[in-house]
């Protein structure tokens, strides 16, 4: 869907983005991850022609984007900007309706779609008539996201879409967001410097440093087979949590001990559930010693176990993963 080849952006004699190439398949989410100033925003803006690359080609849908009128191009690409950038003189309703109006949708259609979207994003429709300065930072950010999604663009660019939020709200929105249809089906490039966010939302992560790609791959790739010390250290901070997040229950099954002794309570998880989420649920339940049942897509039980066995399996799997990847 998106194909970036050999793209460089120079300001003066400094390459702030240096010869990067990557691909994002349709429906996939790519996270651009890196420390502040490494060139994430610059890279993102080259995808919708807000910045012109000094060198290299960006293709969307196999078409070189420079061959298209940039304003037409941008109307087909959702864009959530880093500073939110809502129009202060427009109400929430008008802010959301910007792109549909550019696309000359009729009023009823705009209204219907806005209402749907607000509901999906957890915004009450009573806010439609409010102005951005009457909303909290987090609420504004949701409006910013709604504005990017409304015209149902196949491609969405998001620059730190949850940046203005406190960690708790951030996690909460992220959870909601992950599950909405729009997010799942779209091709998304998302910028963040938060590793947990990257792991949680990204199908693939592209780790940037000083304008260049250090490593690109699935979260599992980056965590269990870091290309170098930089990559390894980048995830060190919350490594345990991240490892739990990238592993699914299915990954555990080969080494998981089955425990069928009678327990007062039972929790059921699908095999795609991340280890982190499963353990979190267990921690939250009143009873600590609880049976854990893993089911397949047809809700058929695959294996029954408990917390202790799950944790042991985690360490076993981790060893195998690290070894496999190292030899591969």
């Amino acid at each position: 869907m998106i194909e970036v080849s050999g793209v460089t952006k120079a300001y003066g004699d400094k390459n702030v983005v240096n010869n990067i190439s990557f691909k994002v398949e349709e429906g996939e989410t790519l996270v651009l991850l890196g420390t502040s100033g490494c060139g994430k925003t610059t890279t993102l803006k080259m995808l919708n022609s807000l910045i012109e690359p000094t060198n290299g080609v960006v293709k969307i849908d196999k078409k070189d984007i420079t061959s298209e009128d940039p304003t037409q191009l941008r109307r087909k690409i959702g864009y959530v900007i880093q500073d939110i950038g809502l129009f202060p003189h427009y109400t929430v309703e008008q802010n959301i309706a910007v792109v549909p109006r550019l696309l000359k949708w009729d009023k009823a259609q705009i209204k219907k779609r806005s209402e749907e979207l607000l509901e999906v994003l957890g915004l009450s429709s009573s806010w439609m008539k409010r102005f951005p300065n009457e909303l909290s930072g987090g609420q504004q950010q949701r409006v910013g996201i709604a504005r990017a999604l409304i015209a149902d663009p196949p491609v969405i660019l998001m620059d730190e879409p949850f940046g203005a939020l406190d960690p708790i709200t951030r996690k909460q929105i992220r959870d909601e967001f992950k599950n909405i249809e729009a997010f799942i089906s779209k091709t998304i490039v998302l910028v963040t410097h938060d590793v947990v966010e990257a792991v949680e939302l990204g199908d693939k992560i592209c780790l940037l440093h000083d304008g260049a790609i250090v490593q690109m791959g699935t979260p599992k790739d980056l965590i269990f087979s870091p290309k170098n010390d930089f990559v390894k250290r980048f995830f060190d901070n919350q490594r345990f949590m991240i490892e739990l997040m990238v592993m699914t229950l299915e990954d555990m099954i080969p080494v998981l001990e089955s425990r069928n002794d009678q327990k007062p309570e039972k929790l059921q998880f699908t095999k795609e559930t991340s280890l982190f989420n499963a353990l979190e649920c267990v921690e939250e339940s009143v009873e600590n010693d609880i049976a854990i049942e893993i089911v397949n897509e047809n809700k058929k039980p695959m294996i029954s176990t408990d917390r202790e066995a799950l944790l042991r399996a985690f360490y076993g799997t981790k060893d195998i993963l690290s070894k496999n990847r190292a030899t591969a």
Partner: protein
Amino acid sequence: MIDSLRGVIAFMIDNQEEIWKQTLEHLWITVVALGVAVIVGLLLGVIISRYERLAGPVIGTVGIFQIIPSIALLGFMIPFLGIGVVPAIVALFLYGLLPIVRNTFTGINSVKPSIKEAARGMGMSNTQILTRVELPLAMPVIFAGIRTAFVINVGVATLCALIAAGGLGEFIFRGIALNNVNMIFAGAIPAAILAIFFDALLGTIQKYIKQLIKPVLITVILGIFIIVPYFFVQSMAERSFRGGFPSEFMQRADGYEGLEKLYNLDMETVELEIGLMYQAVKNKDVDVISGFSTDGRIKAYNLRNLIDDKHYFPPYYAAPMVRGATLRKYPELNEVFERIAGKISDEQMAKMNYEVDQNKKAPKAVAKAYLNEIGLKTDVQLDGDPVIVVGSKNFTENFILAEMFAYLIENYANLKVELKLGFGGTKLNIDALANGDIDLYPEYTGTGLLVLINPREEIRKSIIDDKDKVYDFVKEESRKQYDFEWLQPLGFNNTFALMMREEHARQLNIQSISDLSKYLENL
């Protein structure tokens, strides 16, 4: 306080019609100028916000008009646009431009970059970003600029009365000239109300700008396309013989009113500022003006003084006026000033004024050159403390004469002189002379008669058309009432006079005001 307020109100009620007329003139000059300024200012502001390189030069150029004094700007435009409504509108337009251009530019520039970026990122074109995001967000700042421009314009528009464009300035300037406070207020109060009213109106338009922008813009643009060409055409059209006179001259009983009656003059008249009058006649915007017969500009603009053959204007012969005490102490002054008595003609005085006003020579140098020319010496240099103080009023001719007096006294009476030039008006010089702060200064017989002595009307009427009678009367009365002595007149008569372009007067064969009257009758 209450009384003066009553006076103002009574005056305004008496002159309602005139006030309405002037207010409407004032209003529409301002509104048209502002309309054009808004359109051009917005365009310029938008252009320089797109091409920032141009911002400095454009704002600088537009700003220049703010520092040119209004009168100078009006004068500068006479050769191109003449007098009347057109140059008035152009001047107001130029004055209104800066605040609008600058505020448009600042307003657009102060829209947060993230907002512009968002607009671009959503897929707005440059025009859409401008009209949907930048201009609406800049609107409060732009409106502040428009309101500033409007208030400036209401103020400057009073000056348009000086170039025959009408407006509330007519009352204000006449009032100032005649020292009539009621009249000043009759102009100033409606002007202030206009400013306040329009400020409020603009405030309302700003509030409902979204709904009003289209109708307002359309009206303004249509209005401009209809009105402006109409006035340019009108100002180009043929016109009849026209006189241009300062407000004071138009209003005074001994000004145009009496002149018109005595000579039976029948012509169109407009009010003009004294400084601009000469340019207007030169530029053929008017055909006859009133001025002072020794003004340097008569020569500079090649004008002809019309002979006042019915002696309407009082004689203003210049002569040294000396403190009695000083003359008794230094009687030789009498003899000294005989050397210059009757030695300066109107033309010669006008030429000296011209040297100073137009050629920018020092009054002292011009005085010295003239004395040498008529064979008087100027080379004596005296040391020690001054014993005689020579004063002067605050205009060119009086400066030159005071310098001459100083040369004469030092060279022929051997008395060291101190000069106190530009003392102010007539009143101040008379007081200074009475107190002994100065010993003598150049005065005019007409002024002596009307200001110093101010006799009853019958006496004035009985002597006013004879220059010698006036001189004798003033000399006699000054001695009696003030102990001031008039020495012999210098020769020239700096009176009011009507003037025409030399070649125009020659072509119509007009020498005197009576000739002019006859010519007008036959039109």
